[in-house]
C-alpha cells in the first residue's frame, strides 16, 4: 500500500526555546487508522499542526499524498481534514453556515446535498439552523467534525476527539470513524484513552517528550510486549510459597489465598502445565484458575516511563 503521509526528520523548536519535537520519521499507509498515543505535552498536537500547516516546522519535510506540504500546500491541505483538540467555533454563526464556510475554504464548490448528508450522519441536521453557541459541548464537537469532513478529505486528523465527550457520543464517533475508513479515508487520531487506540487502531505510535518511541502494528505490539498473569485461587490459604515451587516465579497474594504466576506468552514453554502438574503432585488444591493479559495501557505506561534506550530496545 502507498503511504499517504510521510514525515522525514521533522523537528520543532518554539521561539521560547522549547524543543517540542526531536526528529520525527513516520509513514502512514492509505486506508489505515493510526493512533498516536502519548502523555500531555509529548508533541502530538505539534506534529499534527505541522502536517496541517498551522505550525511551521524547524526542520525536516512532510509529504502528503505525494506532495510536499510547503510547495504543494494547495493539494496537501485540501486532502486533509482536521478536528482540533480545542473547541474553537464561530459561536454566533448557524451550524450550517459554519460548515458551508469550511467547504468553501478548502476550495470545494457548494454542495448542499453533501453538507446535508454529513449533518445527518452526525445527528446535527435538526440543529442546522441553531447558533453554535446554543449547542452543548458534545454537539459543538460534532460541528467541528462536520467542518473537517465538509470538503471530503482523504486524510483525517482527530486530535483528542473524545476528550470531555460522553459515552454515547464516543460510541457514535467511533462508529463514524469506522464508516469513514470503510469509505477509504485514512485516519490519524491522538488520544489519552488507551482503550480507544486498542479498540480502533490498526497501528499505534507512541510519542514521548518529542520523540516517536515506537511505531508498531497493534496486535504485534500487544503480542510482543504482552505478558500474561495466571491467578491460581487456592482451596486453603498458605503462609509462604512452598519450596517445591521454587522453579517458578510465584507471588502469594490476597493473604495467601492466591498464587500469581507471570509468564511470557510467546516463550517456547510458558511453564503453565508444569506448574499445574507440580501443584497436583504436592497436593495443593485450587478452586479456580484465570489468566489476565496486560493491556495496551500497561505497555504504554512502561514505555513512557522507561528510559528511552530500553524502550527502543524492547520495540526493536
Amino acid at each position: 500500500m502507498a503511504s499517504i503521509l510521510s514525515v522525514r526528520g521533522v523537528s520543532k523548536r518554539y521561539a521560547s526555546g522549547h524543543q517540542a519535537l526531536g526528529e520525527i520519521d513516520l509513514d502512514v499507509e492509505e486506508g489505515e487508522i493510526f493512533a498516536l498515543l502519548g502523555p500531555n505535552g509529548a508533541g502530538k498536537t505539534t506534529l499534527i499542526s505541522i502536517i496541517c500547516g498551522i505550525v511551521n516546522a524547524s526542520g525536516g519535510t512532510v509529504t502528503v499524498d505525494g506532495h510536499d506540504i510547503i510547495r504543494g500546500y494547495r493539494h496537501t491541505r485540501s486532502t486533509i481534514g482536521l478536528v482540533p483538540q480545542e473547541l474553537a467555533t464561530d459561536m454566533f454563526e448557524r451550524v450550517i453556515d459554519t460548515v458551508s464556510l469550511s467547504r468553501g475554504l478548502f476550495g470545494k464548490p457548494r454542495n448542499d446535498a453533501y453538507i446535508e448528508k454529513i449533518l445527518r450522519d452526525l445527528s446535527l441536521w435538526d440543529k442546522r439552523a441553531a447558533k453554535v453557541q446554543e449547542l452543548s459541548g458534545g454537539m459543538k464537537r460534532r460541528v467541528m467534525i462536520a467542518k473537517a469532513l465538509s470538503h471530503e478529505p482523504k486524510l483525517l486528523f482527530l486530535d483528542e476527539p473524545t476528550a470531555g465527550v460522553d459515552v454515547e457520543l464516543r460510541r457514535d464517533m467511533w462508529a463514524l470513524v469506522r464508516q469513514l475508513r470503510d469509505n477509504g479515508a485514512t485516519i490519524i487520531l491522538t488520544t489519552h484513552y488507551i482503550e480507544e487506540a486498542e479498540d480502533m487502531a490498526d497501528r499505534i505510535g507512541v510519542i514521548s517528550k518529542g520523540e516517536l518511541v515506537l511505531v508498531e502494528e497493534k496486535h504485534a505490539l500487544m503480542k510482543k510486549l504482552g505478558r500474561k498473569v495466571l491467578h491460581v485461587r487456592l482451596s486453603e490459604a498458605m503462609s509462604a510459597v512452598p519450596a517445591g515451587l521454587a522453579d517458578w516465579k510465584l507471588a502469594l497474594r490476597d493473604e495467601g489465598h492466591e498464587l500469581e504466576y507471570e509468564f511470557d506468552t510467546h516463550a517456547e514453554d510458558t511453564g503453565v502445565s508444569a506448574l499445574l502438574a507440580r501443584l497436583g503432585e504436592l497436593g495443593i488444591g485450587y478452586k479456580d484458575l484465570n489468566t489476565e493479559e496486560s493491556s495496551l495501557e500497561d505497555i504504554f505506561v512502561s514505555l513512557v516511563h522507561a528510559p528511552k534506550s530500553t524502550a527502543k530496545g524492547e520495540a526493536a
Partner: protein
Amino acid sequence: MSFNVHAIKAIYKFELHRFGRTLMTSLFVPAITTSLYFIVFGSAIGSRMTEVDGIPYGAFIVPGLIMLSMFTESISNASFGIYMPKFTGTIYELHSAPVSPLESVIAFVGAAATKSMFIGLLILATAHLFVDMPIAHPIAMIGFMLLIAISFCLFGFILGIWAQSFEQLSVIPMLIVTPMTFLGGAFYSVHMLPEPWKTITLFNPVVYLISGFRWTFFGKGDVAMGISLTFVAGMLAVCLTVVWWMFKTGYRLKK
C-alpha cells in the same frame, strides 16, 4: 486549483453575513451620528458661520464626516474580522486551508471595504436630507471612496493581526486615527488656521485624504488633488507591503 475562488467567496460571504448580523449597530449608528453632526454643526453652529472657500458650512463638512466614519469603520471592521478568529481560535481553519495570503487579504479586506462603501454612501444619502450637496466629479468621488476604503481596511487588517488584546485593537483608532481626523480638517479648512498650526497640520496625512475627497465634491481642496492621490497611493503601498511581510514571516499568525 491555481486560485482558490471558492475560498474567497466563502470568506467574503461569511464576513458580510457577520456584518448583516450587526446591521443595526453598523449601519444605523453611522447614519444617526451623522445626523447629529448636522444638527449640531450644520444647523446650530453652521447657521452662524460664514461660507468656507465659498461653500456653505453644512455642505463643507460632509466629505470630512464621510471620511471620519469610513476611517474608523474600515479599521474596526477589518481588524475585528481577523482578530476574532485569532481570539476564538478558529484561525486554525484558515491556516490549515489551501488559501494563499493574497486570497485571504482579498476576501477579508474586500468584505470590510464593501461594508465601508455602504456606510460612506449611506452617510452621503443622509447628508442629502439636510443640505444641498453638489458632486462635481461623481466617478472620482466613488473611486476615491473605494481607495480610502481599501487602504483603511488593509490598515485595519494589519492592526487585527498585530493586536494581542481588545485594548490594543481599539487604541489605534481611538488615540490616533480619530484625533488625526479631527485635526485634519474634517470640520474646517486648513487655510483657516493661523501659523504655526497651519504648517504643523500639513504634516498630518489625513489632511491630504480629506482634501482630496472634498475636491471630488466641490472641485477644490486645501491641497492639489495630485498630492492627495500620492498620499492615498503611498498608504496603500505601505499597507500592502506590511501585509505581504506579515504573511511571509507568519508574524503573530503562526508559531
